[in-house]
Protein backbone atom coordinates (compact mmCIF):
# COMPACT_ATOMS: atom_id res chain seq x y z
CA UNK A 1 0.00 0.00 0.00
CA UNK A 2 1.32 3.46 -0.87
CA UNK A 3 2.35 5.90 1.83
CA UNK A 4 -0.28 8.30 0.54
CA UNK A 5 -3.04 5.72 0.97
CA UNK A 6 -1.75 4.66 4.40
CA UNK A 7 -1.67 8.22 5.69
CA UNK A 8 -5.13 9.05 4.34
CA UNK A 9 -6.57 5.85 5.78
CA UNK A 10 -4.95 6.65 9.13
CA UNK A 11 -6.91 9.92 9.10
CA UNK A 12 -3.80 12.09 8.93
CA UNK A 13 -4.09 15.52 7.25
CA UNK A 14 -1.96 14.71 4.22
CA UNK A 15 0.18 17.06 2.17
CA UNK A 16 1.22 16.29 -1.42
CA UNK A 17 3.46 18.29 -3.70
CA UNK A 18 3.85 18.55 -7.44
CA UNK A 19 6.64 18.81 -9.98
CA UNK A 20 6.58 19.32 -13.72
CA UNK A 21 9.05 17.51 -15.97
CA UNK A 22 11.39 19.72 -18.02
CA UNK A 23 11.11 20.45 -21.72
CA UNK A 24 14.27 18.57 -22.60
CA UNK A 25 16.40 15.99 -20.85
CA UNK A 26 17.88 18.20 -18.15
CA UNK A 27 16.21 16.48 -15.21
CA UNK A 28 18.71 17.37 -12.49
CA UNK A 29 17.20 20.71 -11.41
CA UNK A 30 13.71 19.34 -10.85
CA UNK A 31 15.00 16.22 -9.11
CA UNK A 32 17.19 18.39 -6.90
CA UNK A 33 14.19 20.56 -5.92
CA UNK A 34 12.17 17.45 -5.13
CA UNK A 35 14.90 16.00 -2.91
CA UNK A 36 15.72 19.27 -1.24
CA UNK A 37 12.26 20.69 -0.53
CA UNK A 38 9.63 17.97 -0.99
CA UNK A 39 11.12 14.65 0.10
CA UNK A 40 10.86 15.14 3.85
CA UNK A 41 7.85 17.44 3.79
CA UNK A 42 5.15 15.72 1.75
CA UNK A 43 3.63 12.24 1.59
CA UNK A 44 3.84 12.04 -2.20
CA UNK A 45 4.77 14.14 -5.20
CA UNK A 46 2.53 14.43 -8.28
CA UNK A 47 4.33 14.41 -11.61
CA UNK A 48 2.35 16.22 -14.28
CA UNK A 49 1.60 14.60 -17.64
CA UNK A 50 2.39 17.01 -20.48
CA UNK A 51 0.74 19.73 -18.43
CA UNK A 52 -1.36 22.29 -20.34
CA UNK A 53 -0.52 20.35 -23.51
CA UNK A 54 3.01 21.81 -23.59
CA UNK A 55 5.32 18.98 -24.76
CA UNK A 56 7.71 17.78 -22.07
CA UNK A 57 9.57 14.79 -20.74
CA UNK A 58 7.20 12.05 -19.61
CA UNK A 59 5.59 11.66 -16.24
CA UNK A 60 6.34 7.94 -15.88
CA UNK A 61 10.12 8.37 -16.29
CA UNK A 62 10.26 11.10 -13.67
CA UNK A 63 8.02 9.10 -11.31
CA UNK A 64 10.49 6.23 -11.57
CA UNK A 65 13.41 8.54 -10.83
CA UNK A 66 11.61 9.87 -7.75
CA UNK A 67 11.18 6.31 -6.47
CA UNK A 68 14.94 5.78 -6.92
CA UNK A 69 15.46 8.78 -4.66
CA UNK A 70 13.07 7.57 -1.97
CA UNK A 71 10.25 9.91 -2.95
CA UNK A 72 6.76 8.50 -3.52
CA UNK A 73 5.24 9.71 -6.81
CA UNK A 74 1.66 10.24 -7.97
CA UNK A 75 1.64 9.38 -11.67
CA UNK A 76 -0.68 11.81 -13.45
CA UNK A 77 -2.34 10.47 -16.58
CA UNK A 78 -4.39 12.50 -19.03
CA UNK A 79 -6.67 11.15 -21.76
CA UNK A 80 -5.57 13.67 -24.38
CA UNK A 81 -2.56 11.91 -25.88
CA UNK A 82 -3.09 8.16 -25.70
CA UNK A 83 -5.83 5.80 -26.78
CA UNK A 84 -7.01 2.93 -24.59
CA UNK A 85 -4.23 0.61 -25.80
CA UNK A 86 -1.47 3.03 -24.81
CA UNK A 87 -3.13 4.08 -21.54
CA UNK A 88 -3.53 0.48 -20.36
CA UNK A 89 -0.02 -0.41 -21.51
CA UNK A 90 1.45 2.57 -19.63
CA UNK A 91 -0.45 1.56 -16.51
CA UNK A 92 1.14 -1.89 -16.65
CA UNK A 93 4.54 -0.28 -17.24
CA UNK A 94 4.01 2.08 -14.30
CA UNK A 95 3.08 -0.81 -12.03
CA UNK A 96 6.19 -2.72 -13.14
CA UNK A 97 8.30 0.33 -12.25
CA UNK A 98 6.84 0.37 -8.74
CA UNK A 99 4.48 3.31 -9.19
CA UNK A 100 1.54 2.92 -6.79
CA UNK A 101 -0.47 6.17 -7.04
CA UNK A 102 -2.23 7.24 -10.23
CA UNK A 103 -4.23 10.40 -10.84
CA UNK A 104 -6.66 10.10 -13.77
CA UNK A 105 -7.43 13.36 -15.56
CA UNK A 106 -9.19 14.41 -18.75
CA UNK A 107 -6.31 16.71 -19.74
CA UNK A 108 -6.26 20.18 -21.24
CA UNK A 109 -7.17 20.38 -24.90
CA UNK A 110 -4.24 20.41 -27.34
CA UNK A 111 -5.11 23.96 -28.43
CA UNK A 112 -4.10 25.14 -24.91
CA UNK A 113 -0.51 24.10 -25.52
CA UNK A 114 2.40 24.45 -27.91
CA UNK A 115 1.47 21.71 -30.41
CA UNK A 116 -1.89 23.01 -31.54
CA UNK A 117 -1.78 20.94 -34.74
CA UNK A 118 -1.76 17.65 -32.80
CA UNK A 119 -4.68 15.20 -32.79
CA UNK A 120 -6.64 15.39 -29.55
CA UNK A 121 -7.27 11.74 -28.63
CA UNK A 122 -9.77 11.52 -25.74
CA UNK A 123 -10.51 7.90 -26.65
CA UNK A 124 -11.43 7.45 -22.98
CA UNK A 125 -12.68 10.16 -20.65
CA UNK A 126 -11.52 10.37 -17.02
CA UNK A 127 -14.44 8.17 -15.92
CA UNK A 128 -13.55 5.58 -18.56
CA UNK A 129 -9.86 5.71 -17.58
CA UNK A 130 -10.68 5.06 -13.92
CA UNK A 131 -12.91 2.15 -14.98
CA UNK A 132 -10.04 0.81 -17.13
CA UNK A 133 -7.64 0.98 -14.15
CA UNK A 134 -10.15 -0.84 -11.93
CA UNK A 135 -10.53 -3.39 -14.70
CA UNK A 136 -6.78 -4.02 -14.87
CA UNK A 137 -6.74 -4.46 -11.10
CA UNK A 138 -9.44 -7.09 -11.52
CA UNK A 139 -7.13 -8.90 -13.95
CA UNK A 140 -8.68 -8.00 -17.31
CA UNK A 141 -8.15 -5.38 -19.98
CA UNK A 142 -10.76 -3.63 -22.12
CA UNK A 143 -10.38 -6.01 -25.04
CA UNK A 144 -12.06 -9.32 -25.77
CA UNK A 145 -10.62 -12.69 -26.75
CA UNK A 146 -11.97 -14.65 -29.71
CA UNK A 147 -14.70 -16.17 -27.57
CA UNK A 148 -15.83 -12.70 -26.56
CA UNK A 149 -14.51 -12.92 -22.99
CA UNK A 150 -12.33 -10.18 -21.45
CA UNK A 151 -8.60 -10.79 -21.95
CA UNK A 152 -6.86 -12.05 -18.81
CA UNK A 153 -3.66 -10.43 -17.59
CA UNK A 154 -0.55 -12.36 -16.65
CA UNK A 155 0.27 -10.43 -13.47
CA UNK A 156 -2.13 -7.87 -12.11
CA UNK A 157 -1.31 -4.26 -11.11
CA UNK A 158 -2.57 -2.53 -7.97
CA UNK A 159 -2.93 1.23 -7.69
CA UNK A 160 -4.22 3.92 -5.34
CA UNK A 161 -6.47 5.76 -7.78
CA UNK A 162 -7.15 9.46 -7.69
CA UNK A 163 -9.15 12.01 -9.61
CA UNK A 164 -9.66 15.73 -9.79
CA UNK A 165 -12.68 18.00 -9.32
CA UNK A 166 -13.26 21.75 -9.65
CA UNK A 167 -14.93 23.05 -6.47
CA UNK A 168 -15.26 26.66 -7.70
CA UNK A 169 -16.72 25.70 -11.09
CA UNK A 170 -19.64 27.81 -12.40
CA UNK A 171 -21.61 24.52 -12.38
CA UNK A 172 -20.70 22.78 -9.10
CA UNK A 173 -23.63 20.37 -9.39
CA UNK A 174 -22.31 19.09 -12.73
CA UNK A 175 -18.86 18.68 -11.13
CA UNK A 176 -20.43 16.78 -8.24
CA UNK A 177 -22.23 14.37 -10.58
CA UNK A 178 -19.04 13.70 -12.52
CA UNK A 179 -17.20 13.13 -9.25
CA UNK A 180 -19.87 10.58 -8.25
CA UNK A 181 -19.21 8.76 -11.52
CA UNK A 182 -15.42 8.87 -11.00
CA UNK A 183 -15.76 7.38 -7.52
CA UNK A 184 -18.20 4.76 -8.80
CA UNK A 185 -15.53 3.88 -11.38
CA UNK A 186 -12.86 3.40 -8.72
CA UNK A 187 -11.45 6.77 -7.62
CA UNK A 188 -10.18 6.54 -4.01
CA UNK A 189 -8.95 10.09 -3.45
CA UNK A 190 -9.48 13.57 -4.87
CA UNK A 191 -7.02 16.40 -5.49
CA UNK A 192 -8.93 19.54 -6.38
CA UNK A 193 -8.37 22.38 -8.81
CA UNK A 194 -6.96 25.50 -7.16
CA UNK A 195 -9.03 26.98 -4.33
CA UNK A 196 -8.68 30.61 -3.17
CA UNK A 197 -12.16 31.08 -1.76
CA UNK A 198 -12.65 28.99 1.40
CA UNK A 199 -16.38 29.85 1.44
CA UNK A 200 -16.99 28.44 -2.05
CA UNK A 201 -14.90 25.38 -1.16
CA UNK A 202 -16.95 24.81 1.98
CA UNK A 203 -20.19 24.96 -0.02
CA UNK A 204 -18.81 22.40 -2.44
CA UNK A 205 -17.62 20.11 0.36
CA UNK A 206 -21.13 20.20 1.86
CA UNK A 207 -22.56 19.33 -1.55
CA UNK A 208 -20.29 16.28 -1.91
CA UNK A 209 -20.68 15.11 1.69
CA UNK A 210 -22.30 11.86 0.46
CA UNK A 211 -19.17 10.99 -1.59
CA UNK A 212 -16.97 9.10 0.83
CA UNK A 213 -13.44 9.66 -0.45
CA UNK A 214 -10.67 11.84 1.01
CA UNK A 215 -10.32 15.27 -0.59
CA UNK A 216 -7.03 17.17 -0.79
CA UNK A 217 -7.64 20.85 -1.37
CA UNK A 218 -5.71 22.22 -4.33
CA UNK A 219 -3.40 25.09 -3.44
CA UNK A 220 -1.69 26.88 -6.31
CA UNK A 221 0.93 29.28 -4.99
CA UNK A 222 0.10 32.78 -6.24
CA UNK A 223 3.44 34.27 -7.19
CA UNK A 224 2.19 37.75 -8.05
CA UNK A 225 -0.88 39.93 -8.45
CA UNK A 226 -0.48 39.57 -12.20
CA UNK A 227 -0.72 35.81 -11.90
CA UNK A 228 -3.93 36.19 -9.88
CA UNK A 229 -5.44 38.42 -12.54
CA UNK A 230 -4.30 36.02 -15.25
CA UNK A 231 -5.95 33.11 -13.45
CA UNK A 232 -9.21 35.02 -13.11
CA UNK A 233 -9.13 35.84 -16.79
CA UNK A 234 -7.86 32.59 -18.25
CA UNK A 235 -8.05 29.62 -15.91
CA UNK A 236 -11.54 28.11 -15.89
CA UNK A 237 -13.03 27.25 -12.51
CA UNK A 238 -10.57 29.37 -10.53
CA UNK A 239 -11.50 32.66 -8.84
CA UNK A 240 -8.92 34.66 -6.96
CA UNK A 241 -10.69 37.14 -4.65
CA UNK A 242 -9.78 40.81 -5.18
CA UNK A 243 -8.47 41.23 -1.63
CA UNK A 244 -5.85 38.50 -2.22
CA UNK A 245 -4.72 40.22 -5.42
CA UNK A 246 -4.61 43.52 -3.51
CA UNK A 247 -2.36 42.03 -0.82
CA UNK A 248 0.12 40.94 -3.45
CA UNK A 249 -0.07 44.32 -5.19
CA UNK A 250 0.61 46.13 -1.92
CA UNK A 251 3.52 43.88 -0.92
CA UNK A 252 6.99 45.28 -1.63
CA UNK A 253 8.78 43.22 -4.24
CA UNK A 254 11.22 41.64 -1.79
CA UNK A 255 8.33 40.49 0.45
CA UNK A 256 6.19 39.04 -2.31
CA UNK A 257 7.27 35.42 -1.86
CA UNK A 258 6.62 35.76 1.87
CA UNK A 259 3.10 37.08 1.19
CA UNK A 260 2.47 34.27 -1.33
CA UNK A 261 3.35 31.71 1.32
CA UNK A 262 1.18 33.48 3.91
CA UNK A 263 -1.82 33.45 1.60
CA UNK A 264 -1.43 29.73 0.81
CA UNK A 265 -1.00 28.87 4.51
CA UNK A 266 -4.05 30.94 5.49
CA UNK A 267 -6.27 29.13 3.00
CA UNK A 268 -5.05 25.76 4.29
CA UNK A 269 -5.68 26.76 7.91
CA UNK A 270 -9.21 27.85 7.02
CA UNK A 271 -10.20 24.72 5.10
CA UNK A 272 -8.30 22.18 7.18
CA UNK A 273 -11.32 21.19 9.34
CA UNK A 274 -13.42 20.33 6.28
CA UNK A 275 -11.01 18.31 4.11
CA UNK A 276 -8.43 15.55 4.45
CA UNK A 277 -5.31 17.12 3.04
CA UNK A 278 -3.72 19.72 0.82
CA UNK A 279 -2.16 19.36 -2.60
CA UNK A 280 0.51 22.04 -3.05
CA UNK A 281 1.17 23.20 -6.58
CA UNK A 282 4.10 25.58 -6.23
CA UNK A 283 4.90 25.91 -9.94
CA UNK A 284 8.67 25.80 -9.53
CA UNK A 285 8.77 27.62 -6.17
CA UNK A 286 9.30 24.33 -4.36
CA UNK A 287 11.52 26.11 -1.83
CA UNK A 288 8.29 27.65 -0.46
CA UNK A 289 6.83 24.27 0.49
CA UNK A 290 8.49 23.99 3.93
CA UNK A 291 7.34 27.52 4.77
CA UNK A 292 3.72 26.84 3.74
CA UNK A 293 3.66 23.66 5.82
CA UNK A 294 5.11 25.44 8.86
CA UNK A 295 2.82 28.45 8.66
CA UNK A 296 -0.23 26.25 8.08
CA UNK A 297 0.71 24.45 11.34
CA UNK A 298 1.04 21.11 9.56
CA UNK A 299 4.40 20.08 11.04
Amino acid at each position, binding site marked *: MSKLQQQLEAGKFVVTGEIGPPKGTNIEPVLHEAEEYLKDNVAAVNVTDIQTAVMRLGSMALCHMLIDRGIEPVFQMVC*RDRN*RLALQSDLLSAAALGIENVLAL*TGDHVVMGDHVQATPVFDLD*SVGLLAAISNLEAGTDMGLDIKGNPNKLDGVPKFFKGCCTTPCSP*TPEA*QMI*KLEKKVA*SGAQFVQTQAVYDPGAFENFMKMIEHIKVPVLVGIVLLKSAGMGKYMNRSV*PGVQVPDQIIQRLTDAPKEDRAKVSVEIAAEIIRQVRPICQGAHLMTLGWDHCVPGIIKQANLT
Partner: protein
Amino acid sequence: MNATEPKPTEEILESLADAKSVFIVGCSGCPVGCDVGGEKWVDEMTAAVRGAGKDVTGSALIELLCNKALVGIKLGRIVEQVTAAEAVLVGSCGVGVQAVGNMVARRTVPALNTICLGDYQGLWPGEERCGECGECVLAYTGGLCPITLCAKSLVNGQCGGTGDNGECEVSPDHPCGWKKIYDRLKELGRIDDMRRMIDPRDARKRAIPDAIRRTTRYALEVSEQEDPAPASEE
Protein backbone atom coordinates in the same frame (compact mmCIF):
# COMPACT_ATOMS: atom_id res chain seq x y z
CA MET B 1 -28.27 11.08 -47.39
CA ASN B 2 -27.64 10.20 -43.76
CA ALA B 3 -27.32 6.50 -42.98
CA THR B 4 -29.08 5.24 -39.90
CA GLU B 5 -29.69 1.87 -38.31
CA PRO B 6 -32.28 1.01 -35.70
CA LYS B 7 -31.30 0.78 -32.06
CA PRO B 8 -32.37 -2.53 -30.50
CA THR B 9 -35.97 -2.22 -29.24
CA GLU B 10 -34.82 -3.11 -25.69
CA GLU B 11 -32.40 -0.18 -25.72
CA ILE B 12 -35.16 2.20 -26.88
CA LEU B 13 -37.55 0.95 -24.22
CA GLU B 14 -34.82 1.23 -21.56
CA SER B 15 -34.27 4.88 -22.43
CA LEU B 16 -38.06 5.38 -22.21
CA ALA B 17 -38.25 3.45 -18.92
CA ASP B 18 -39.53 6.32 -16.80
CA ALA B 19 -41.84 7.82 -19.45
CA LYS B 20 -45.49 6.80 -19.14
CA SER B 21 -46.50 8.56 -22.33
CA VAL B 22 -44.64 8.96 -25.60
CA PHE B 23 -45.10 10.97 -28.80
CA ILE B 24 -43.47 9.43 -31.87
CA VAL B 25 -41.86 11.41 -34.70
CA GLY B 26 -40.65 9.67 -37.83
CA CYS B 27 -38.59 11.14 -40.65
CA SER B 28 -39.65 10.35 -44.16
CA GLY B 29 -36.38 11.66 -45.59
CA CYS B 30 -33.10 9.74 -45.38
CA PRO B 31 -34.18 7.01 -42.93
CA VAL B 32 -36.69 5.67 -45.48
CA GLY B 33 -33.74 4.77 -47.67
CA CYS B 34 -32.31 2.77 -44.77
CA ASP B 35 -35.65 1.07 -44.11
CA VAL B 36 -36.06 2.76 -40.73
CA GLY B 37 -38.41 5.60 -41.61
CA GLY B 38 -41.81 6.23 -43.05
CA GLU B 39 -45.24 5.12 -41.95
CA LYS B 40 -44.26 1.49 -41.47
CA TRP B 41 -41.61 2.47 -38.93
CA VAL B 42 -44.02 4.75 -37.05
CA ASP B 43 -46.59 1.94 -36.86
CA GLU B 44 -43.99 -0.56 -35.64
CA MET B 45 -42.70 1.82 -32.97
CA THR B 46 -46.23 2.70 -31.87
CA ALA B 47 -46.93 -1.00 -31.37
CA ALA B 48 -43.65 -1.57 -29.51
CA VAL B 49 -44.19 1.39 -27.16
CA ARG B 50 -47.82 0.44 -26.50
CA GLY B 51 -46.69 -3.16 -26.00
CA ALA B 52 -44.44 -1.90 -23.17
CA GLY B 53 -47.55 -0.54 -21.44
CA LYS B 54 -47.03 3.10 -22.39
CA ASP B 55 -49.53 5.57 -23.77
CA VAL B 56 -48.79 6.87 -27.27
CA THR B 57 -50.22 10.40 -27.36
CA GLY B 58 -49.81 10.72 -31.12
CA SER B 59 -47.34 10.51 -33.96
CA ALA B 60 -46.12 12.55 -36.88
CA LEU B 61 -44.20 11.88 -40.03
CA ILE B 62 -42.13 14.80 -41.28
CA GLU B 63 -40.28 14.95 -44.60
CA LEU B 64 -36.91 16.08 -43.31
CA LEU B 65 -36.46 16.30 -39.56
CA CYS B 66 -33.18 18.14 -40.03
CA ASN B 67 -35.26 21.13 -41.20
CA LYS B 68 -36.00 22.74 -37.84
CA ALA B 69 -38.45 25.31 -39.23
CA LEU B 70 -40.52 22.57 -40.83
CA VAL B 71 -40.42 20.56 -37.58
CA GLY B 72 -41.65 23.62 -35.70
CA ILE B 73 -44.55 24.21 -38.11
CA LYS B 74 -45.67 20.59 -38.31
CA LEU B 75 -45.43 19.86 -34.58
CA GLY B 76 -46.95 23.26 -33.79
CA ARG B 77 -50.22 22.10 -35.34
CA ILE B 78 -50.48 19.16 -32.95
CA VAL B 79 -48.76 20.73 -29.98
CA GLU B 80 -51.27 19.29 -27.47
CA GLN B 81 -50.44 15.74 -28.53
CA VAL B 82 -46.72 16.46 -28.24
CA THR B 83 -46.85 18.17 -24.86
CA ALA B 84 -49.20 15.51 -23.48
CA ALA B 85 -46.25 13.11 -23.72
CA GLU B 86 -43.41 12.84 -21.22
CA ALA B 87 -40.93 11.92 -23.94
CA VAL B 88 -40.68 12.23 -27.70
CA LEU B 89 -39.25 9.25 -29.56
CA VAL B 90 -37.52 10.34 -32.76
CA GLY B 91 -36.60 8.15 -35.71
CA SER B 92 -33.97 10.13 -37.54
CA CYS B 93 -30.29 10.96 -37.65
CA GLY B 94 -28.80 12.87 -34.71
CA VAL B 95 -29.47 16.19 -36.43
CA GLY B 96 -33.22 15.47 -36.54
CA VAL B 97 -33.35 14.33 -32.91
CA GLN B 98 -31.66 17.55 -31.81
CA ALA B 99 -33.87 19.68 -34.09
CA VAL B 100 -36.97 18.17 -32.48
CA GLY B 101 -35.43 18.66 -29.03
CA ASN B 102 -34.87 22.33 -29.81
CA MET B 103 -38.49 22.76 -30.93
CA VAL B 104 -40.32 20.96 -28.13
CA ALA B 105 -39.89 21.38 -24.39
CA ARG B 106 -39.77 17.64 -23.96
CA ARG B 107 -37.13 15.01 -23.55
CA THR B 108 -36.19 13.58 -26.95
CA VAL B 109 -35.07 9.99 -27.29
CA PRO B 110 -33.32 8.68 -30.40
CA ALA B 111 -34.62 5.45 -31.91
CA LEU B 112 -31.78 5.15 -34.40
CA ASN B 113 -27.99 5.24 -34.48
CA THR B 114 -26.46 7.46 -37.14
CA ILE B 115 -23.66 5.71 -39.00
CA CYS B 116 -20.72 7.66 -40.28
CA LEU B 117 -20.93 8.77 -43.88
CA GLY B 118 -18.14 11.29 -43.64
CA ASP B 119 -19.74 14.06 -41.58
CA TYR B 120 -22.65 14.60 -43.93
CA GLN B 121 -25.14 16.72 -41.98
CA GLY B 122 -28.54 16.19 -43.56
CA LEU B 123 -30.26 18.30 -46.17
CA TRP B 124 -31.47 21.23 -44.05
CA PRO B 125 -29.35 21.34 -40.94
CA GLY B 126 -29.51 24.30 -38.57
CA GLU B 127 -27.01 24.64 -35.75
CA GLU B 128 -27.42 20.97 -34.78
CA ARG B 129 -24.57 18.68 -35.68
CA CYS B 130 -24.39 14.91 -35.50
CA GLY B 131 -21.09 13.16 -34.78
CA GLU B 132 -22.27 10.02 -36.61
CA CYS B 133 -20.81 7.98 -33.76
CA GLY B 134 -23.19 5.06 -34.28
CA GLU B 135 -23.98 4.91 -30.53
CA CYS B 136 -26.42 7.79 -30.07
CA VAL B 137 -26.59 9.05 -26.46
CA LEU B 138 -29.06 11.92 -27.02
CA ALA B 139 -31.59 10.14 -24.77
CA TYR B 140 -29.40 11.01 -21.76
CA THR B 141 -27.98 14.37 -22.76
CA GLY B 142 -31.10 16.49 -23.04
CA GLY B 143 -31.20 16.00 -26.80
CA LEU B 144 -27.88 17.86 -27.24
CA CYS B 145 -24.95 16.01 -28.82
CA PRO B 146 -21.85 15.83 -26.56
CA ILE B 147 -19.79 14.38 -29.41
CA THR B 148 -20.14 17.55 -31.50
CA LEU B 149 -20.74 20.19 -28.78
CA CYS B 150 -17.89 19.21 -26.43
CA ALA B 151 -14.41 20.03 -27.75
CA LYS B 152 -13.17 16.74 -26.27
CA SER B 153 -16.30 14.75 -27.18
CA LEU B 154 -16.57 13.72 -23.53
CA VAL B 155 -19.53 11.45 -22.79
CA ASN B 156 -19.70 11.40 -18.98
CA GLY B 157 -19.93 15.09 -18.16
CA GLN B 158 -17.84 18.25 -18.18
CA CYS B 159 -14.12 18.48 -17.54
CA GLY B 160 -12.62 21.28 -15.45
CA GLY B 161 -12.39 23.61 -18.43
CA THR B 162 -15.74 25.39 -18.12
CA GLY B 163 -15.27 29.15 -17.71
CA ASP B 164 -17.32 31.54 -15.58
CA ASN B 165 -19.42 32.54 -18.56
CA GLY B 166 -20.03 28.96 -19.64
CA GLU B 167 -17.30 29.07 -22.28
CA CYS B 168 -15.01 26.17 -23.17
CA GLU B 169 -11.28 26.34 -22.43
CA VAL B 170 -10.52 26.08 -26.16
CA SER B 171 -12.00 29.49 -27.01
CA PRO B 172 -14.18 32.24 -25.53
CA ASP B 173 -16.43 31.78 -28.58
CA HIS B 174 -16.96 28.09 -27.96
CA PRO B 175 -19.69 27.43 -25.37
CA CYS B 176 -19.05 24.43 -23.11
CA GLY B 177 -21.19 21.63 -24.54
CA TRP B 178 -21.71 20.04 -21.14
CA LYS B 179 -22.80 23.36 -19.61
CA LYS B 180 -25.46 23.48 -22.37
CA ILE B 181 -26.46 19.90 -21.65
CA TYR B 182 -26.57 20.61 -17.91
CA ASP B 183 -28.75 23.69 -18.43
CA ARG B 184 -31.11 21.81 -20.75
CA LEU B 185 -31.42 18.86 -18.37
CA LYS B 186 -32.14 21.29 -15.55
CA GLU B 187 -34.93 22.88 -17.65
CA LEU B 188 -36.34 19.44 -18.38
CA GLY B 189 -36.08 18.41 -14.70
CA ARG B 190 -33.88 15.49 -15.71
CA ILE B 191 -30.51 16.11 -14.01
CA ASP B 192 -30.34 12.42 -13.07
CA ASP B 193 -29.73 11.63 -16.74
CA MET B 194 -26.20 12.97 -16.23
CA ARG B 195 -25.60 10.15 -13.75
CA ARG B 196 -25.88 7.56 -16.48
CA MET B 197 -22.52 5.86 -17.11
CA ILE B 198 -21.70 6.00 -20.79
CA ASP B 199 -19.18 3.41 -21.97
CA PRO B 200 -16.13 4.37 -24.02
CA ARG B 201 -16.99 4.79 -27.71
CA ASP B 202 -16.55 2.05 -30.29
CA ALA B 203 -14.30 3.65 -32.92
CA ARG B 204 -15.36 1.10 -35.55
CA LYS B 205 -18.78 2.72 -35.65
CA ARG B 206 -17.27 6.11 -36.30
CA ALA B 207 -15.49 4.89 -39.45
CA ILE B 208 -17.41 4.61 -42.69
CA PRO B 209 -18.46 0.97 -42.78
CA ASP B 210 -17.12 -0.91 -45.76
CA ALA B 211 -20.59 -2.23 -46.51
CA ILE B 212 -21.79 1.33 -47.08
CA ARG B 213 -18.68 2.37 -48.95
CA ARG B 214 -19.29 -0.43 -51.44
CA THR B 215 -22.87 0.59 -52.29
CA THR B 216 -23.69 2.28 -55.58
CA ARG B 217 -25.67 4.92 -53.69
CA TYR B 218 -22.62 5.92 -51.69
CA ALA B 219 -20.51 6.07 -54.84
CA LEU B 220 -23.11 8.25 -56.54
CA GLU B 221 -23.55 10.62 -53.59
CA VAL B 222 -19.84 11.03 -53.03
CA SER B 223 -19.15 11.61 -56.71
CA GLU B 224 -21.99 14.17 -56.84
CA GLN B 225 -20.52 16.12 -53.95
CA GLU B 226 -16.99 16.19 -55.22
CA ASP B 227 -15.98 18.48 -58.04
CA PRO B 228 -14.59 16.53 -60.94
CA ALA B 229 -10.82 16.68 -60.66
CA PRO B 230 -9.13 18.58 -63.50
CA ALA B 231 -7.24 16.30 -65.84
CA SER B 232 -3.63 16.12 -64.88
CA GLU B 233 -1.00 16.84 -67.48
CA GLU B 234 1.83 14.86 -65.99
